[in-house]
């Protein structure tokens, strides 16, 4: 551990604005880029299920 307390850690040796915004920006971008395909998959699987159910209904009639 390079820092002796939380204040020192958050201060980042005086470079806090630069260090924390670089890490925050990276994590936010990573999060957004990762959430997009997860949500789209959920949506697509739901549509696919609906389509399959429709096919089954057609076949049984």
């Amino acid at each position, binding site marked *: *551990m390079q820092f002796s307390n939380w204040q020192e850690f958050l201060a980042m040796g005086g470079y806090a604005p*630069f260090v924390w915004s*670089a890490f925050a920006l990276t994590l936010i971008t990573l999060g957004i880029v990762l959430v997009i395909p997860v949500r789209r998959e959920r949506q697509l699987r739901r549509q696919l299920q609906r389509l399959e159910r429709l096919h089954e209904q057609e076949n049984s009639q």
Partner: protein
Amino acid sequence: MSQTATSAQRRKRFKPPLWVYKLASPAYFDHLAGRIIPWLLFPGLVLLSIGLVWGLAFAPADYQQGDSFRIIYVHVPTAALSMAIYMAMAITAAISLIWRMRLAAIISRNCAPIGAACTFLALATGSLWGKPMWGTWWVWDARLTSELILLFLYLGYMALHDAFEDPEVGSRAASILALVGVINIPIIHYSVEWWHTLHQGATLFKFAKPSIDPSMLWPLLVMLLAFALLSAANVLMRSRNDVLERRLQPDDD
């Protein structure tokens, strides 16, 4: 007569192996991607957590740059991947052009947003590192400018890909752009050697021992692997979605 026989033989000889054809089947790819993705995603997230704590709290501060140097743990992985993903995009683009393999075209297209995000982050974190160290957010030097061109290549690729009514034509045009843009990759890499620049030289990717202490190198490698795994998972997730979407289209049976 004999000529047609040889050309038929040649065609046979250049056939891709069976697994390539299997990959092209949507159901098989859905199944395969579903098995691979968790093995990339979860180790990626675990390594990211480890790398963040290690880089931010446990790695020693730089003797010249102090704690501002910790930006390296997000800057170098995103910058390295911005180039690696471009190469993956170009290689899959070439495969899609040569063999007309639809899956390669899908993967190529899905490399673009991830590569663009990495390029954006490399530029943004570099800027946030440059301000306290160089005294400026931006300078038009070779490294920074060629990396900015990389961002425009990614954005141009995506715009071109989606600009045509016939998706096949868009895919082919964008693939050619991706291949032409490969010229920029060695320019980015060697820019710090070829031109006088504010940007420091290579720390990791060179034919010599990395010029960084192991206590700083290990968390950097962890972050690099984390970003690589997460990017691969992301491209596969998006590609699987595209394959699923094709199954929803009624004329694609």
